[in-house]
């Protein structure tokens, strides 16, 4: 009886095709020159392949042709938002190769400067994340605070973005007089401002609905892709026994072992109920809480600085010894590794400098994270990975 089709239902034969959308190298929200080729079925993504190399600046070839200390400015330009941390990673690798001892004062200055740069980098990450998702105010607020940090850096080393301040053996110059007071004033100014950012973004229900449950990253996938930094920490769960994976805690370098801070790992009691551990919101919130930890670290460094022993820089050896050294440091985007090979014929030019960047490993997840989401979620996911193309392409 029911073989005749219901006359109230009208069916059209609709043929759908897949679209290849090119989110090209020039795009307001790809955080630099990243090209994403999206295979979409309407709005739903079935595949997102990242193409990189549009900023490949041959840093590793340059590393084989200039002396170790001449390479420091090139490390600045890799992750240009956290240039001090890049300098620190490379300097530690060369110092490990040479077997140098760094005086305590240099280590304290390095910690203060690196953490201050971490605050600046996370501010940019937060501001541009808001910009990608459509709000302009957090960007302006973040850059307002960042300009003050850049003023402090300009007093220390003369540059606003590419510092080359942390060199092999320590830091280039001692801190100028009065700088520690100005830094303390800045930190006191910044602490209540963090609450403004939470109101603007973290607890904003539009932001939450655009980032909660988007781009969920399971822990085993993160480890298999060698993710690190806030990308990995946003997927860990302290209550289920995951370690606090922060290289400053696990393999302390530059005196971090003596400081009192915690690695930020979920679960967070203040997380909105819609969000799940491993989504974009948690990665963003890890970065926000890391800013507070960095402020604590800066203040502890400031207390140690007046009584620290030694000078600001150790003497340099004449040439690099043979051998190789690989050092990873915790940069704002993850673990940045530098592998330096020295020549057996005594020379100050290394045989090979390899920079392994955290954003390279984090970006490899882009394909898996973007499957099944809408095109409008791509800026949310790519923004939460927090990539810097200078680091990926070197």
């Amino acid at each position, binding site marked *: 009886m029911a073989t005749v089709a219901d006359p109230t239902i009208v069916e059209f034969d609709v043929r759908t095709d897949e679209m290849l959308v090119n989110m090209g*190298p*020039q795009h307001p929200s790809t955080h630099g020159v990243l090209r994403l080729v999206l295979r979409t079925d309407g709005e739903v993504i079935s595949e997102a392949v990242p193409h990189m190399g549009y900023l490949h600046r041959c840093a590793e070839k340059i590393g084989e*042709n200039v002396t170790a200390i001449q390479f420091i400015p090139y490390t600045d330009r890799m992750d240009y938002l956290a240039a001090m941390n890049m300098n620190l990673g490379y300097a530690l690798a060369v110092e490990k190769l040479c077997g140098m001892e760094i005086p305590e004062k240099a280590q304290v200055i390095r910690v203060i400067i690196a953490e201050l740069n971490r605050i600046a980098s996370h501010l940019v990450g937060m501001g541009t994340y808001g910009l990608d998702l459509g709000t302009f105010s957090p960007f302006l607020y973040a850059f307002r605070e960042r300009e003050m940090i850049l003023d402090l850096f300009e007093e220390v080393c003369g540059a*606003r973005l*590419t510092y080359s301040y942390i060199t092999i053996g320590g830091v280039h110059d001692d801190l100028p007089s009065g700088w520690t007071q100005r830094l303390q004033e800045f930190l006191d100014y910044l602490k209540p401002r963090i609450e403004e950012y939470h109101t603007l973004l973290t607890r904003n229900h539009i932001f939450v609905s655009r980032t909660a449950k988007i781009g969920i990253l399971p822990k085993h996938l993160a480890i298999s892709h060698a993710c690190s930094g806030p990308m990995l920490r946003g997927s860990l769960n302290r209550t289920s026994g995951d370690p606090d994976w922060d290289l400053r805690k696990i393999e302390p370098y530059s005196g971090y072992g003596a400081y009192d801070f915690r690695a930020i790992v979920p679960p967070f009691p203040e997380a909105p109920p819609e969000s799940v551990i491993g989504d974009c919101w948690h990665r963003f919130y890890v970065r926000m809480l890391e800013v507070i930890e960095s402020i604590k670290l800066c203040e502890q460094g400031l207390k140690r600085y007046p009584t620290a022993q030694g000078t600001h820089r150790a003497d340099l050896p004449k040439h690099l010894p043979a051998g190789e050294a690989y050092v990873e440091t915790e940069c704002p985007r993850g673990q940045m590794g530098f592998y330096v090979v020295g020549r057996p014929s005594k020379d100050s030019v290394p045989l090979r400098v390899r920079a392994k960047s955290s954003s390279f490993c984090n970006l490899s997840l882009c394909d898996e994270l973007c499957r099944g989401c809408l095109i409008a979620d791509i800026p949310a996911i790519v923004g939460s990975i927090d990539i810097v193309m*200078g680091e990926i392409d070197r």
Partner: protein
Amino acid sequence: MGWLEGRFEESVITTSLEQAINWARQSSMWPMTFGLACCAIEMMATGASRFDIDRFGAGAFRATPRQADLMIVAGTVNYKMASRVRRLYNQMPDPKFVIAMGACTCGGGPYYKYGYNVVKGVDLVVPVDVYVPGCPPRPEALLEGLMRIQDKVRGMKDLTKNQQTDLPIPSRTGYTLLPAELGGAV
């Protein structure tokens, strides 16, 4: 503007019309977001609140080249990216201007010697109007570059026939007078 160009003899009326059109153009140069590398961050800082580029009228960064008339190439251009730079330049409508921001775009920058993949200066790819050196240039330097472009616009004579192109006269050079108590002119 297409049918108006080169149509009139030089006279008082066309001069003030040109001045009015050039003033409108220079006060609303809309740049295209073309930040490639580290200089892009300084470009963003120029657009932020301390070194506000919007007070020059150039604050509306358009993402699409079809609506922009200024391309600030901020960052290193390499061989893979060069074809895209040229294509985006071709997509911009006339009159268009290019600022080469940063040492890498001026002549290869720090990657000049061993950069096998770096274009030694973006003027090998697009015609450049103003070069702003620096690594990265300070936001004030980029604003001065923008002011030079504005001077160039001020000197444009599109409406008159047989125009001779004059060199643009820099105004608002950024030289400030010292206050009188420090020895400057009163």
